[in-house]
């Protein structure tokens, strides 16, 4: 027994001599082979981020020779740890062309690739990156909101965190210099993850090579921890609702609201509807970079009228060079589900079109090129505040199309950001969803149930009486 503690290490030693793991050279060779198969297309043969596919790519692929890594758990200007690199390879970078390799490469291949990437810059041999400690104590998002103001985060990220700050608006949208700030309401686009832990590291160490500098010396650990929780709290987290495709107009008593706030809207469930660029039809342009990534939709009705409240983020809200606009699309014929881009020749669609400057029109379309414009029979109430459009569409329940309880009517949402050069078919669009209206409260189901119960009782008594007799 006393010899046992020595036994395990010695066996391991013997095993390691008999079956040695891959040598450093073999690991590098494996890493290089994977790199030349998978990575060089974007990151280039020499790792300078200048591969054949890198042309026009934004953001640009990482230059492994300069080794200016953005997503790190280390201080500003430092190299990333192996774990940082492994994590990025494994999960990819959302919102960029960098895919997640977790299901394609094995763990061993991940490690080999990291070893190879590190061999591309001499800095890795000389420096030993150390991860920053992350607090695990309680945090106060309310205090974080004050830090957000104090540290002037709003200059780039906007007052409400929608990436629409004065600096971003001027540099990116006015002058075309691509320094865009993260929209905090879209947590799924955070390059390094949207957990408070991840956000804390980004705030503390900054993102190398971008205007997002380090706040390690500017804010205390607790301030940064509070701020990280505040930022995380802005995330709208659509992941739970992306598959939810039913807009239910909640029933309320009395008049429908004409404003975008107010208690009535609390009754309606908010749906986050993902939007994507229109990339099917060109000319004029397949549109890969719409500025809206999602819109939020709520609907109400009062038995006579129906109201849709559509909200989406737009960093500028300016009417230049083109006005912003939005529309709701419905099938023009009962029971049809037309082609989602303005319908088709057999299946026309009706569009409720709104354009900033208070244009409201009703369109009937049988394809993108065939649109007939009529005056609107619906009302629109738009507002723009803190980087967000809120547009309320209101119409009678009856009409073309009509909204009825128990009926599921296809509906589609689309928005255009004029400042981003969007107009016509250059736009962000959803797929078809459905809309239905909440059934008015009535005693009929109860009466029916009662009648059935009574009927069943009568039948039962009759059967019993028959059996007795």
């Amino acid at each position, binding site marked *: 027994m006393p010899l046992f503690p020595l036994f395990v290490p010695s066996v391991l030693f013997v095993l390691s001599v008999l079956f040695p793991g891959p040598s450093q050279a073999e690991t590098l060779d494996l890493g290089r082979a994977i790199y030349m198969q998978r990575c060089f297309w974007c990151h280039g043969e020499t790792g300078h981020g200048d591969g054949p596919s890198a042309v*026009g790519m*934004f953001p*640009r692929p990482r230059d492994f020779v*300069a080794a*200016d890594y953005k997503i790190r758990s280390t201080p*500003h200007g430092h190299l990333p740890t192996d774990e940082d690199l492994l994590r990025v390879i494994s999960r990819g970078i959302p919102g960029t062309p960098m895919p997640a390799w977790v299901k394609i490469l094995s763990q061993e291949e991940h490690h080999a690739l990291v070893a190879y990437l590190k061999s591309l810059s001499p800095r890795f041999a000389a420096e030993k990156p150390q991860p920053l400690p992350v607090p695990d104590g309680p945090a106060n998002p309310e205090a974080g909101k004050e830090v957000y103001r104090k*540290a*002037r985060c709003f*200059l*780039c990220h906007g007052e409400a965190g929608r990436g629409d700050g*004065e*600096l971003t*608006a*001027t*540099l990116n949208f*006015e*002058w*075309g*210099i*691509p*320094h865009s700030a993260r929209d905090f309401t879209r947590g799924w686009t955070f390059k390094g993850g949207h957990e408070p832990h991840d956000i804390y590291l980004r705030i503390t160490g*900054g993102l*190398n*090579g*971008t*205007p*997002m*500098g*380090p706040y390690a010396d*500017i804010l205390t650990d607790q301030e940064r921890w509070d701020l990280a929780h505040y930022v995380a709290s802005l995330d709208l987290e659509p992941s739970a609702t992306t598959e939810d495709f039913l807009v239910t107009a909640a029933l309320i008593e009395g008049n429908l609201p004409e404003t975008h706030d107010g208690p009535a809207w609390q009754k309606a469930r908010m749906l986050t509807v993902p939007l994507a660029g229109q990339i099917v039809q060109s000319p004029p342009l397949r549109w890969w*970079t719409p500025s809206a990534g999602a819109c939020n939709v709520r609907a109400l009705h009062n038995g006579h009228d129906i109201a849709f409240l559509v909200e989406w983020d737009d960093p500028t809200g300016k009417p230049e060079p083109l006005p912003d606009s939005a529309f709701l699309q419905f099938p023009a014929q009962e029971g049809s589900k037309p082609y989602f881009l303005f319908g088709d020749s057999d299946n026309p669609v009706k569009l409720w079109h709104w354009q900033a400057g208070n244009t409201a029109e009703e369109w009937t379309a049988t394809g993108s090129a065939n649109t007939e414009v009529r005056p609107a029979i619906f009302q629109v109430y738009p507002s723009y505040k803190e980087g967000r459009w809120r547009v309320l569409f209101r119409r009678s329940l009856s009409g073309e199309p009509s909204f009825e309880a128990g009926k599921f009517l296809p509906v589609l949402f689309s928005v255009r950001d004029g400042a*981003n*050069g969007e107009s016509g078919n250059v736009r962000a669009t959803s797929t078809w969803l459905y809309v239905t209206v909440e059934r008015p409260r009535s005693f009929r189901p109860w009466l029916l149930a009662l009648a059935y119960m009574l009927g069943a009782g009568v039948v039962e008594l009759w059967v019993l009486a028959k059996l007795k007799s």
Partner: protein
Amino acid sequence: MKTLHPFLAVMLLAVPAPGEEPRLYNPYDRPKNGPPLTNVFHKAQPLWLWDKLKQPKHHPSARMPDFKFSDEEAMDALAYLKSIADPSFPKQEWPPWTAKTEDTMNDEELTEMMNLTDMGKAVWGNARCTVCHKANGPGGTIIGGFVDLRVGGIDLQIAQAKLERDWLYSWVKEPKSYFLDTLMPRYRLSDSEARALVEFLLRDEAFRPTTEPKPEAPGRWKALDDPSRISRGKRLIELSRCVVCHDIKGILELLSFPPRPAPPSENTVSWLFYDVRCLSCHSIEGRGGTYAPDLTSEGSRLKASWIHDFLIQPDLIRPLSQQMPKFNLSPEEAKTVADYVQQFRRDPRVPTSVPPGEAEKGRALFQSKGCVACHTTGEGPGGGVGPTLDFVADRLEPGYLFHRLKHPHAVNPFSAEPDYGLSDEEAAALSAYLLGKKK
């Protein structure tokens, strides 16, 4: 709508192998659009700087966002900028009268001042400053991103309310010594020319505020020397990310730029393009400015001898259109550029020779087609819309002339010149006629 950031564009200026096309400096490929702020206190007056920080949008072509600084914050930022100004910034010796107003000068000083400003006005005209800068009164074009010295109503934007004398002298002499990436060319002004231009800019009413600035509280700017203000200002400048557009001493650099290439060796064509900033206005293969003609295939169009003479003494070509400034190039420098254009800036579609034609028939065609409506030929009256053809044979390559007559819109699809569908014979006749137009 995303464009490639200028600093991502390659800025190579390496010396090419013999016979290889030289890489030319494009001033738009610069890492930061804003001027450096380290010595901005030597350049501009505190009141102007304060106004710029408080109301950047005063300036219609300003790129600067509105930071919504409070009065105190603007003072803090100014305090830091003042603290980093280099005390050894070059100063000039100025005659004592330059500090006086015109009312207090004696006759001798007044004459000296008038002579100098007159000379300065000539420098201003020859350098075609109005291509980029505005002055009070009629005239003056402005190209996006260039500095407007006169903006309607905002008197603080005017040179005399903004600029410091010593800075202005060093700027007109050696713009790159202050702002390495400026779009402004170096004009090779002599010391006296630079002094005359400075005097003109600081005296002429074209650059004078039209309203008297409000009197400032005495000692207002003393507060800038407060050390706590300086450290608050530094933090504010850091948090406001001023370094995204400006170089500022002592502030952490956040963006990573490719290392700046060494300037090209002197007297090469690369160096001349770097020094004179030709691509601020001209473009070559899509790189450069849009104000002046594209040079991509000028070698097929223009005679080298004409390019050479034009660079030394730019004359009017289109009386109603913009004119090129005089850059004071030496004959050797002009030859270097002309040789480069002749060798590398060619269009393979343009023929190098022209078929024989009858000049007399050409003259008749010139009249019958109504060419005189837009062009002068030195024979009687003519129009000013098209370039003057008085000495066209000295300017254009014969092959180009023929090609252009045949296909007026092949070279420039937006040309106002009508396409008459001339036959080879007609075009050859017209060419023969025009090729007789020599000095």
